[in-house]
């Protein structure tokens, strides 16, 4: 399914596939994916910090690839598999990256953490055994004002070792 040729400026029907569930929404075409997730769907784990693609706090997956949801329009995400931080764990079982983030204290205020987790988990999907440089590359676009980068790298390497 692709976006219609003409839409807006009023609300238009948009169907999003979020964390394995199809959601029918009425949104203005200018609505970003981050706004749609947070405001229309209440999935506030996805954070908006700069709203201009400079900090990566809003990282989600589109078809398994990390994207900046503040720089994507919701209407363009129609027909793609969207995974947010709320959809990463399998029920009560956390993703190995989430487990390792807790163990290694790869968070402080935690505001950048959901985005960091999404990028690090995506890295392990493409490269199950990265080295520290590869982890740093994967989070190079993420800002963390608390300075958690060393623990994020350590946690992701530990998660890679634990992953079957």
């Amino acid at each position, binding site marked *: 399914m692709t976006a219609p040729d003409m839409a807006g400026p009023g609300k238009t029907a948009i169907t999003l596939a979020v964390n394995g569930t199809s959601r029918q929404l009425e949104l203005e075409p200018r609505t970003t994916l981050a706004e749609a997730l947070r405001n229309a769907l209440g999935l506030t784990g996805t954070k908006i*910090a700069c709203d201009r693609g400079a900090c990566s706090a809003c990282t989600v997956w589109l078809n398994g690839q990390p994207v900046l949801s503040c720089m994507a329009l919701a209407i363009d995400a129609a027909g793609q598999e969207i995974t947010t931080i709320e959809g990463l764990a399998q029920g009560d079982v956390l993703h190995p990256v*989430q487990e390792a983030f*807790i163990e290694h204290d790869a968070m402080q205020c935690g*505001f950048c953490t959901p985005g960091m987790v999404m990028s690090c988990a995506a890295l392990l999907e493409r490269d199950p055994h990265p080295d520290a440089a590869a982890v740093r590359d994967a989070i190079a676009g993420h800002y963390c004002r608390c300075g958690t980068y060393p623990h994020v790298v350590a946690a992701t390497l530990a998660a890679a070792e634990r992953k079957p």
Partner: protein
Amino acid sequence: MTATRTVTFPAGIVEAGLGTVTREIPASEPPPWPPNAELTWIGKDVPRLNGREKVTGATRYTVDIRLPGMLHARFLRSPLPSAELRKLDTSAAAALAGVRAVVVLARSGDRLRYAGQPVAAVAAVSPGVAGEALAAIDAEFRPLPFVVDMDEARAPDAPLVYDEASVPKGNPSGFPAAPGLPVVGNVRGPAVVRRGDPAQGFAAADIVVEGEYRTQVQTHSCLEPHAIVADWRADGLTVYMSTQFTSGVRQELAALFGLPLNRVRVVVDGMGGGFGSKSQLGVYGRTAVELSRLAGLPVRLALNRHEEQTDAGNRPGTSQRVRLGAKRDGTLTALAIESHGTAGVALGAGIGFFAERIYTCPNFETLQHDVFVNAGPGCAMRGPGNTPGAHGLEQAIDTLAERLGLDPLALRDRIDPSKARREERRIGAERIGWSRRHAPGADPGPVKRGLGVAQSLWMSNVQTNVACEVRVLRDGSVEALSSVQDIGTGIGTVMAQVVAEVLGLRPAEITVRIGDTEFPPGGPSYGSRTTASITPPLRTAATRVLAELGREAARMLNAAPEELEARDGRLRVKSDPARSLAFRDAAALLRTDRISAVESRADDYPGFRRRMPDAAMALEDLGGVQFAEVAVDTETGAIHVERVVAVHDCGRPMNRLLLESQVQGGVLMGVSYALLERRVMDRRTGLMVNADLEHYKLAGAHDTPEIEVVILENLQGSSATDAYGIAEPANIATAPAIANAVYNAIGVRLASLPMTPDAVLAALGKTGRS
């Protein structure tokens, strides 16, 4: 007269050899804790207990809160750095469909002093409608002369930011803006601190070194913006706010809106960073509450990133002229500093008390000035005053060492009275490999390496107006409660450790409820004081509920209450551990559903160095020494910080995993300050040109050095936990350590921050810039 008893505490730096100290303490205080090695949870790497919520996105930050009927507020701000408001008509905006309230913050004829100063605010049913309402406000601004550069503002003919009637008289956050200082043009001060006779001290010196150092304006750049959801109702006001001080905001609101304290509630769960900038209610907070009051509906106000960069506080910029006089052996005879700093339209741009306290010097003087410019107000930021102050003095000390032919560590050994820092220098020198340090600029190739060191000093702050509660419920579950907020340090986890240690439970068994003024007042999370303030009364409260529980258990076990201990989830007879009762079975014996103890912060046992109404300073300052290893590419000018060794003390370390995170964060913010960050103001328009996160550069993963953290266990027998803070000390020494390492690498001193590639090339004489 409070009953007291005399007890002996372990005292000293555990790593350097422990002694004892005898104190007379209030009889109600618990007995001394042994060193951490003998404790179960204290000082251990307990992962933060709210980690699961943070990694799953479940934590609710203020910006995530949605209330039924909630309105969205936005500000109209001055587009000009200096203007007279000629006209402000909000009637068309107020009449727009969907607009529910309008607040006017300036009147026709008012002078506006910086670009971004709030003029009016609207609350509407959506952010879009609020934006349309702003566009419908009819406002006229008459441009006035302005100045945004600190040096230009000091010129005699500079446009005046304030006239005599309007100039700020003093600053409650005070770095060092004492009341009643003279104002000449845009310059206020000096604030003077003097001891001895500096002139005589310089005359007696064998050597005098002098240098000028400059630091830039840094913005806090919290990832969660300043945000509030205000819910004014007939029966009281509830405010959800991203704040470092719930009970302080409650007091401000009660006073401002004439409400009794019991009708004001302030709540924060997730808190996305403050670093000093979220300590008070602020204009945005008070405006949101006023809009909610007018509209009769909840109002959400969250600043956007541009507003964050221009009107949410910043670390003031400084210039510092530092003079040191010394004998040939390094003994200081005189230390004099004259500083100018700018906090924009606000006060508080001093260089703190770093120089005043860190080194032994009989003749001392600082003259500190505030310079007004037409820019957004500065405020406290991680180690306010001392962070820029250390940048100047620690480079001057290195310069003196070189002139005297002394190793920088040897000079500090001579003039620094702190025992903690002496040990920290020794440990850090070993870890960084200080013996490898070569002469300045000695590397032959284009990439030159260097080693540098700098020191930290911060107050051991304590909030004395702090209370907390511990409850045991009849099913054996336990709660710890306080209005104290977790701004990212993990204080809730530390609180669980304290209660678990006392009750013989696991930290995960303690439910910690914080960040809500419904609970006992927990004090602020600024000034590195949270742990020092909340953990001692918490231990005392937990000890009291355990005693009450123990009386029930003792009857069952046919023992005296004082014969019992709480360990491994059981209450047991110390001399005969087989006689025991599970904690929850003991709780089942309670006569009521719940027992509880509320305790407040006792004074430090040996007293305080200084006492204020709600706060105090402990006798011993916090230290900290950091070593940096850098590689400077003399062809590109790029500085790469390869490694930092950060050796710190904070009394008794409560959780080394969380402390390591905070120290890494302090170092990272210091690397960012040293190399990258800078607010850029356009002299011709008076606007900030990098008011975003693309052009305002923060350190990222690729800028992160290898950081080795060492934290001493420095026991003092000063409170029920002996714990103090770390956040600010961790930030203060980083930039000067890097600057000293850069000098060691290239043999040329970069006296100004940030040390960007173009500044390096200029210092090396490789560009036209001087």
